[in-house]
């Protein structure tokens, strides 16, 4: 049998059979890993997000005790703003969205306990104390540089949050100084 140039000997392939063309495809599935301290909790009216107080700790004058959905995050990102719906006012159920910000979590790597100071934007400081029976232990999960998640037991308390509930509080900032081991919760009036 004589074949012309390009003719198939057997089948349709050059060397017989059908020609198979190799084909491949790579497809990507992307995902994200959150640190363990990333939580989104659904809290009912009156439930506390951190500790017993609205913002943690024990409230001596309970006028504001509503926290609902509270997404929060501790990461090595130094500043993070999140909305937290809450209520305030004396038995007035009124929702407000506030921006919640953690700033500088690095100091939490140092020794505990930390001292928390509550203040409004008009520089009014809410006193607190511990070692005198007013404190309360609770747990704050956090991350620090290097994205390493840890849990620290932080002891703090405060006397009263009365005054800060009488304004339009929209922003809470928690800061902590690297060396002073003093954490600060700041409530800003607007």
């Amino acid at each position, binding site marked *: 049998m004589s074949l012309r140039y390009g003719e198939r000997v057997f089948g349709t392939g050059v060397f017989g059979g059908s020609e198979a063309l*190799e*084909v491949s495809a790579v497809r990507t*599935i992307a*995902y994200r890993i959150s*640190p363990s301290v990333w939580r989104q909790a659904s809290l009912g009216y009156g439930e506390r997000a951190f500790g017993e107080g609205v913002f943690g700790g024990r409230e001596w004058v309970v006028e504001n005790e509503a926290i609902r959905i509270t997404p929060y995050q501790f990461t090595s990102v130094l500043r993070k703003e999140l909305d937290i719906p809450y209520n305030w006012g004396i038995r007035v159920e009124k929702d407000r969205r506030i921006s919640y910000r953690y700033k500088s979590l690095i100091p939490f790597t140092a020794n505990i306990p930390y001292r928390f100071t509550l203040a409004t934007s008009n520089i009014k400081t809410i006193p607190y104390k511990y070692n005198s029976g007013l404190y309360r232990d609770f747990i704050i999960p956090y991350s620090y540089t290097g994205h390493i998640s840890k849990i620290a037991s932080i002891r703090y308390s405060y006397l009263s949050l009365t005054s800060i509930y009488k304004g339009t509080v929209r922003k809470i900032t928690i800061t902590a100084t690297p060396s002073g081991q003093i954490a600060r919760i700041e409530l800003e009036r607007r």
Partner: protein
Amino acid sequence: MPVLESDLKLYGSLYMPRNDTDINGGGIDTANEITGEIGEVFNDLESEEEGGPTYYQYRKVFFKNNSTTSNLENAKIWIFSDPESQVTMALESTKDGNDQSENRITPPSGYTFVEAQDEDHALTVPGNGHLENGEAIGVWLKLTLPAGLAPKNRVDLKLKIKGASTE
């Protein structure tokens, strides 16, 4: 026309709940092509605090031969890239299958998950690697998330399918 690279697409399954309770997996959802967006397949992943339990999540995706004329022979699938070494896989025993698991944290019954991290360890598509045009094969993925991991904004898991197209 042979099967083209663009004919081999990855799709989600009908049930990919964003909770740990609803049915997971099922048939192919061709309206849900997996294109590499974060969270399309695995989501809500939290590495527990160090010393805590390992978290597992199971998802089912499909490789489909969208060619209208040609089949794929000797088709095999493997994990082309798994940068965190967190994923193992298993192929559904039948094409265009509907297997499901109780929820996304419960493994589908009857499957053995393997690493299949390179072509030498690739899993052959059931039926001697034959993937007819229009057919899809279910790929179960198991993601293992140990406790104490650092967060990652993006991890790209890559699956590869390879075969020979018939004209």
